[in-house]
């Protein structure tokens, strides 16, 4: 087999075909864009892309982790906001303290949500919806419905310090976190156990995976990541303001699905999510270059999510693979039906 075919097979088997494809597509579109508008691509564009990755990347990873486990954490966008608020409020003198407080609070809250989901066998969707409201309310209470400024300018500047030509300390931190989590997922049994829980929970339980513990840990961790992202963002913007926006959620879900995470769970890699985030950030940068209005950006992202949702819809997939896998399927049906 030629090395190209070999590489392709390895990439496909890792589920990276979609995200890498998405990045290539976006890059091509971007290049065409610059040809059309006559504006050359500069490192400033690259910087913007990575800033976007830095802002929402961890939010996407947080949601992606819960999706891989077959759940869905709707409280992530609210924890993003609360994390920022907590960090800004408590990190005035020492930014690290602020981050620690935000992450610690998130771990506790996420674990609580996870506990309810695991013990009572409830879907995470309504529970985290309630969590979303609770966290939003807490944010309003803590900020007294006002914007809170962050006065530690050294910290703000530190975060903004450029690294290389296209990164900043902020985006670098986020990339490092991605890398760390990727290493843990790949080199420990946590990654495959998580995918097992999402892929076939009954089989995972029967195999001896401590499903409840994993569910609690996953929801705790997703909250923690969201809080971290929020804290960094709070510092970077030198303040926070409470709002109810759904946009981090739309970005996170689109990036995750682009990154190869399946909605039903069981599939997805950290690298894939990173690629999905990058692809979506390139798209957003392109829209900025085009001077697209906010509403147009919203529509484009919404449309992309619809397309992605339809492509990954089980109804569509079943028809395609039905003919290909009818043998296995019939066998499985026999096994399931003839009890």
């Amino acid at each position, binding site marked *: 087999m030629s090395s190209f075919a070999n590489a392709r097979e390895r990439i496909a088997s890792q589920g990276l075909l979609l995200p890498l494809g998405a990045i290539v597509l976006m890059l091509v579109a971007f290049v065409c864009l610059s040809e059309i508008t006559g504006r050359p691509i500069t490192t400033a564009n690259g910087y913007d892309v990575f800033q976007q990755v830095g802002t929402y990347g961890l939010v996407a990873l947080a949601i992606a982790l819960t999706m891989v486990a077959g759940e869905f954490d709707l409280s992530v966008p609210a924890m993003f906001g609360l994390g920022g608020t907590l960090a800004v409020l408590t990190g005035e003198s020492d930014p690290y303290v602020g981050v620690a407080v935000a992450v610690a609070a998130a771990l506790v809250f996420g674990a609580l949500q996870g506990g309810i989901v695991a013990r009572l066998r409830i879907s995470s969707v309504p529970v985290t919806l309630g969590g979303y409201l609770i966290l939003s309310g807490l944010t309003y209470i803590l900020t007294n419905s006002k914007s809170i400024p962050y006065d530690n300018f050294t910290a703000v500047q530190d975060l903004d310090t450029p690294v290389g030509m296209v990164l900043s300390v902020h985006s670098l931190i986020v990339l490092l976190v991605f890398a760390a989590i990727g290493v843990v997922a790949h080199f420990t049994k946590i990654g495959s156990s998580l995918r097992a829980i999402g892929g076939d929970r009954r089989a995972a339980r029967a195999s001896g995976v401590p499903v409840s513990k994993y569910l609690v840990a996953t929801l705790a961790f997703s909250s923690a990541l969201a809080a971290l992202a929020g804290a960094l963002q709070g510092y970077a913007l030198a303040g926070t303001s409470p709002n109810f926006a759904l946009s981090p959620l739309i970005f996170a879900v689109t990036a995750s699905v682009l990154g190869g995470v399946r909605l039903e769970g069981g599939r997805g890699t950290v690298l894939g999510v990173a690629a999905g985030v990058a692809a979506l950030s390139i798209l957003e940068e392109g829209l900025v270059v085009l001077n697209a209005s906010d509403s147009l950006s919203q529509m484009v992202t*919404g449309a992309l999510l619809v397309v992605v949702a339809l492509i990954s819809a089980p109804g569509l997939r079943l028809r395609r693979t039905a003919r290909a896998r009818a043998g296995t399927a019939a066998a499985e049906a026999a096994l399931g039906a003839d009890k």
Partner: protein
Amino acid sequence: MKLSPAGFAVTLGLVGFCILALTTPGFISSDGARAILLSAAVVGTLAVGQAIVMISGNLFSLSLASSAAASGMAFMASLRLGIEVAAAVAIAAGVLLNAAQGAAVGLWRANPIIVTIAAAGLIEGAAISLSHGKVLYAPRAEHGQDFLTSVVGGIPVAVIIFLAVTICAQLYMRRTRTGREIYLLGDSREGARAGGLAEAALTVKAFSVAGALAGVAGILLATETQSAQVSLVGTNTYDAIAAALIGGNAVFGGRGSPVRAAIGAVAIAAITDLALVRGYSTGLQIAVKGTLVVLAVVIVRLADSSAKTA
């Protein structure tokens, strides 16, 4: 009558609420009651729509409030053609926008949360673009629009409409073939399929009815503020879902009812107004709402698992 732990908790909550209400000056007065019902009207109508989506087993729609805002804008834009036409346009818009989502969910089994999140973004973006970011106002010569903001027999018309649609929705779900089959679909999708029920069509119908209700909510919204813009969405998305859940609808389908969602909306409105009168902050209200949602979901789940034998 046996009192399960769930029932006990609910009773305790109600008692606590009544005490709080009775000891708050200005709460129990016809003005107070009217204010509660008025603020419940919009959220309640949306909540009834959410309840129907929940009953059909499709979780909930995160775009219902957005399509309500869009309907409100359509209503304003067509008022010059007469109020009946404008109302029809608004409701039709709601039906179409949501039927499309129902098709994606029913025909292709796409994830309803994802589809409705995306639709919300699309609808809001489109609404802003089409209106060029401007606010739509009622034309000078309003045709019968006064009626919608008037009061009949001491009750605001908006409230009458809310109660009327609730009753209609309840009758629809309990007394028509489609409504009853939607309950069956939500209880067991495979059972409905094997029994020959039309799953895809039922899902589209459920979403369409919810869309029609969103259209009505949009009309109420627009006439309340005498204007329409996307920001009308506000917090209605979550409030409606919270109302439906707090009223006792189950997110896993097959049970619950429009009336419960309406009661949940009234309860939320009452709590919100109580908090306002007592001077509690917005944040606390929202947090309390969230807590109630979690409690309601847990209670419904516990009640369900104790009823179902292994």
